[in-house]
């Protein structure tokens, strides 16, 4: 196979151009006319459709987006066994050929990008720019890992000595269970799945029950690209299927993105070796965070305020990378709070389909109730700054909230709320801010607004986070540019979209051959 052109991130839609914006309404209409989708259980040639559960539009909860078949226990088992069969041949296909399948899948997504973005607008209430960015990220993962796998096939160089030939190569591990979230409903399942497939593994995909239609589109893309049916199965469900996959002795690798509670349980469960199991399961976990933005006294507040507002409140804060806390130097704390409060009051809380919406409804009723509980706690324990009085109804809308003066042990400072709530605290020094960050059990993203090079160096050295952003927002990681993943309880350092990610999905085998015959090197 000839060399692929260098990887380039898929350009997002240039929505500042009216000609581009004018295409969106038509795409949404076209998508709406296809709803509701039917999402089947898909295992090789077998498809079962049944309206076991539904996914709905968070902005119009009565509107059904997909009718979904829930995979039964026997089907999950069948999916794993099918995947184990499928990987026999898939693992023997060259990396170049596997790469081509992924690139064809990327092309399939690219051709339908407006349609896919429209689906995310409906199924997950992702505002257009967010939805489009998610589709582009999915394309990016396919393109990036395709190239990575080709490179990885070459193995790693080892020291060679006369009479001895050493090589180190990477082989697929086998069946991969991919358990994916709804907040990046195409990109995250695509990232985990394509990394597994690129390296020769097979996949059983169990998507979040809130975004099954997006997962269906991913599977369609992969199959259209030429990934054999046995190699990627879809087992939708509301939870049981996931834990069954994790426990299944036929699964070699589990790729999970989701909450800390579930992630830790998966690791515990996956540690068990069932009778007859011939391997140690590997878990790749990307979990939550409580991301802090440090603002020093010499920060440019003109940059910091919009950056923090976007990081905390875009997509209603439903990102593991979202800013949850601000640690601001006392010298500028009052000014920052004033401007943050003012800017937050201006956020547009509205339907995802409306351009200009910054805070769409959260994903479901229980999420809205959770946010409301934390906001009520914020009113009790601290001071609310600025704010929006009314939010639309129906739909799971939450007003964005900035809260300060919280006691140090407030759960608002510890718990991942996954909603539009931002806590602001004043610190006496950057050292104190770093102490606070260092004291957290999580370390996913972090931000720093400062202009003294010594401060920047200091925070770089001390911050344990997986993704530190200096003088910009903490969200919007791009494949290849910001390999993404956290440390401590935020994950086991996966770094999706980075040069090391594929290593999680392979097993290394070193081979040494003695090339001496009768004293001669042959």
């Amino acid at each position, binding site marked *: 196979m000839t060399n692929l052109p260098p990887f380039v991130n898929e350009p997002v839609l240039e929505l500042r151009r009216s000609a581009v914006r004018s295409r969106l309404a038509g795409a949404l209409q076209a998508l709406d006319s296809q709803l509701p989708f039917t999402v089947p259980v898909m295992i090789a040639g077998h498809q079962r459709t049944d309206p076991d559960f539904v996914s709905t539009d968070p902005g119009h909860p009565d509107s059904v987006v997909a009718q979904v078949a829930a995979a039964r226990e026997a089907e999950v088992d069948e999916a794993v066994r099918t995947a184990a069969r499928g990987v026999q041949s898939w693992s023997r296909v060259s990396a170049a050929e596997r790469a081509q399948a992924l690139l064809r899948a990327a092309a399939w997504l690219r051709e339908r990008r407006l349609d896919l973005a429209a689906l995310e607008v409906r199924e997950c209430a992702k505002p257009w720019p967010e939805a489009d960015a998610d589709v582009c990220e999915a394309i990016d993962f396919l393109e990036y890992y395709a190239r990575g796998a080709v490179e990885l096939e070459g193995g790693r160089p080892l020291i060679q000595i006369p009479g001895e030939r050493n090589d180190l190569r990477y082989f697929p591990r086998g069946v991969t269970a991919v358990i994916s979230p709804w907040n990046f409903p195409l990109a995250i399942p695509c990232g985990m799945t394509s990394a597994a497939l690129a390296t020769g593994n097979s996949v059983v995909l169990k998507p979040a029950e809130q975004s099954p239609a997006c997962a269906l589109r991913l599977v369609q893309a992969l199959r259209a690209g030429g990934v054999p049916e046995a190699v990627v199965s879809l087992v939708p469900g509301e939870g049981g299927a996931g834990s069954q996959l994790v426990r299944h002795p036929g699964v070699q690798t589990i790729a999970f993105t989701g909450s800390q509670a579930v992630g830790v349980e998966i690791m515990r469960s996956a540690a068990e070796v069932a009778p007859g199991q011939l391997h140690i399961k590997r878990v790749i976990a990307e979990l939550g965070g409580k991301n802090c933005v440090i603002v020093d*006294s010499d920060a*440019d507040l003109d940059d910091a*305020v919009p950056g923090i507002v976007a990081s905390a409140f875009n997509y209603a804060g439903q990102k593991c990378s979202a800013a949850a806390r601000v640690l601001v130097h006392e010298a500028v704390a009052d000014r920052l709070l004033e401007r943050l409060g003012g800017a937050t*009051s201006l956020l547009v809380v509205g339907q995802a389909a409306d351009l*200009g919406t910054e805070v769409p409804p959260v994903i479901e009723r229980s999420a809205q109730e959770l946010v409301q509980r934390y906001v009520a706690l914020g009113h009790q324990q601290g001071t609310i700054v600025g704010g929006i009085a009314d939010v639309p109804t129906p739909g799971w809308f939450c007003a964005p909230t900035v809260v300060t003066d919280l006691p140090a042990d407030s759960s608002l400072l510890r718990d991942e709320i996954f909603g539009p709530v931002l806590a602001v605290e004043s610190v006496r020094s950057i050292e104190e801010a770093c102490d606070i960050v260092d004291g957290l059990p999580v370390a996913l993203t972090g931000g720093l607004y400062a*202009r003294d090079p010594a401060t920047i160096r200091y925070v770089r050295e001390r911050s344990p986070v997986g993704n530190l952003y200096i003088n910009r927002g903490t969200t919007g990681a791009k494949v290849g540019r910001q390999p993404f993943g956290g440390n401590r309880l935020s994950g086991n350092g996966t770094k999706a979209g980075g040069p090391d990610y594929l290593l999680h999905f392979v097993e290394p085998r070193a081979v040494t051959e003695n090339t001496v015959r009768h004293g001669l090197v042959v």
Partner: protein
Amino acid sequence: MSESLTPNTNQSELESAIRSIGQRLAEAMPSGTRNPVKALDARAMELASGDRELRAALFRFVDVVPACRSLEDVARHLRGFLAELPEAPPSLSAALRVTDIRAARTALGAAAAAGVRHMAHRFIVGEDPAAAIRVLRGLWERGVASSVDLLGEATVTQDEADVYAARCAEALRHIHAQAGTWPARPVLEQDSSGSLPRTNVSVKISALTPLLRPDAPALGERDAAARLLPLLRTGQELGAHIHVDMESLDSREAVLELILELLSGQEFLHGPSVGMVLQAYLRDSPEQLETILSWARSTRRRPPLQIRLVKGAYWDHELVEARQQGWPAPVFERKADCDRNFEGLTRVLLDARPAVRVAVASHNLRSVSHAIAYNRLSGGQDQDLEIQVLRGLGDELQDALAANGFRVRTYCPVGDLVAGMAYLVRRLLENTSNESFLHEQASGRSLDELLAAP
């Protein structure tokens, strides 16, 4: 290019006229050594132009000075930036060594802050309109008009937008009250379309509203309209000119639609005098101009809308944003292409009068001479072309133009150091860029080379 020339002008006639006008202006430009303070600035600029890392360090320093809480803080930042240089110039190395002693640090901080303030004053005429008025009057008496631009923090809240709008209104009234006492200057007060206001204030839509969103321009447009409307009424009442600035591409649609919408209404059909900006570095500026001109011709508003033609001040930003998002660059990437487009747009604008009024804003002797030459060759009068320059960058050209009887207007930023930083950094960037005309002029290129077609 020749297709945009009128039938009675040909290329070689135009080039020869450009040369003779350019020569005339160059001869009228005062030399730098007359003002020793200016020479000092020039030396600093030269230092910064030659060394990219030093330039970056100085810009980052200038940018952070207003946020520093004490002179020691200033010194600490200066030291931090300079310490990152592989090789600081000898004078600066000496300054670095000095910072080990507390008293010396304070002194260095004071010197550095003073240096930045001094540099800032080159570009900023005063902290507020009252402080600036002396300079404005001085300019007027020397035959130079002005447009006041109010610098400020970014507007991210409604309160900040209200404060800015109030400052604009206050500036209009204050300047108007003073300008009435200024002596007559017919060159600055009259053209073929009628009288020209003495009071001229530039406003930024991004400061008038915190709601500008690139993918939803109507939001910001509506919000800004609510504050622009009263300013237009004040302009109408005082007979003042209100110029609407153009900023980054992200807000262009909102700004353009806002202007054309407000001026289409009955209320403002006969005033006040309003201006807008066309940026020649944007590839689609010819299409933009067509949109504006067809509006102007169909609305037939009097006084005519003034179009200020500029190259553009956000080039780096536009390029970086486009590259980061994977979009095609919206700006010309080669200076010559931008300059050529500037000249093409100049000709279209001049041909379009009196549907619009024309101001050509540039420090490039070639661009300015081209405008004057084409105006004359196509039968226009000098009084129907205004040249605009930036305070601190175009001072010499400004004097040469005034001396030769042209109407020149200097864009005068007003505001404190904190507010002025983004502006100052951009001006320094412009001034020390290897491609800037001023840099080329200072580096001793011949007049012939400087006046050659792009």
